[in-house]
């Protein structure tokens, strides 16, 4: 069976759901960030597939441009998120998100 647009979209949604499951169930803050990276990658696959199948390839590359911006934002997010995690670890000696409830009402 030929590989089409649907295959990429279904793969992307499977990856997104795996990442979401990890992001909502993990207790280690670094593991949550890793799951969010999986979700961002899933969205990137969908965008590149749209650019390849829906929009005209090599003429309109908006999907690929969006992927570049998503990557930039993901890199910045990982950088700031890990800085926050290391700062929390310094002051509270834990990265368990259920223990970090200082701002919880």
């Amino acid at each position: 069976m030929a590989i089409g647009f649907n295959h990429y979209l279904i793969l992307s949604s499977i990856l997104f759901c795996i990442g979401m499951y990890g992001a909502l169930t993990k207790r280690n803050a670094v593991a949550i960030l890793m799951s969010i990276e999986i979700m961002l990658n899933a969205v990137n696959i969908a965008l590149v597939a749209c650019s390849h199948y829906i929009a005209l390839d090599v003429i309109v590359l908006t999907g690929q441009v969006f992927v570049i911006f998503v990557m930039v934002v993901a890199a910045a997010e990982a950088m700031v998120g890990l800085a926050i995690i290391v700062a929390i670890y310094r002051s509270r000696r834990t990265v368990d998100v259920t223990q970090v409830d200082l701002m919880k009402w």
Partner: protein
Amino acid sequence: MALNIAFWILAVVTVGAALGVVLIRDIFRAALFLVLCFFTVAGLYVTLQADFLAGVQVLIYVGAVAVLLIFAIMLTREVQRGNPSNPLSIPVLIFALLLLGTMVFTIVKTSWLPVVAVSDLPEESLTPMGSGVIGSLAAVLFTEEGFLLPFEIAAVMLLAAVIGAIVMMREK
């Protein structure tokens, strides 16, 4: 045919590696599975003829983000082991499966058609501005009517993120 085989191998390895990231208890091994996942996603970009993005994926995710994550794992290694089970895991599993079912149903039921037919476009817009995928990507990214302003905003945002990370990591 070769593309089909490549897609299936890459898809299976990607999903397996993502499951490994989520299910494996040891956080360091999970990070190594995440690196594998990033590599296979780069391979998927190659099957979609996005060669520049495949290179960028390897450089940024495997080269920078994964190293940063492993660095953070090493810095914040938990002293005590044992991951107590999260009370949310069963409802989240059900919700994730429901979401997956809904998305797959929608994807299969929708008839995806190209947004613009080739015959509707004016003749001059059919010739790509640059040469190849990378050339036209650069032409889209670096022209005034393209994405030049968001590109510069992204550069400023990266600078702000770097400064913010340095400020937060600095010893008081």
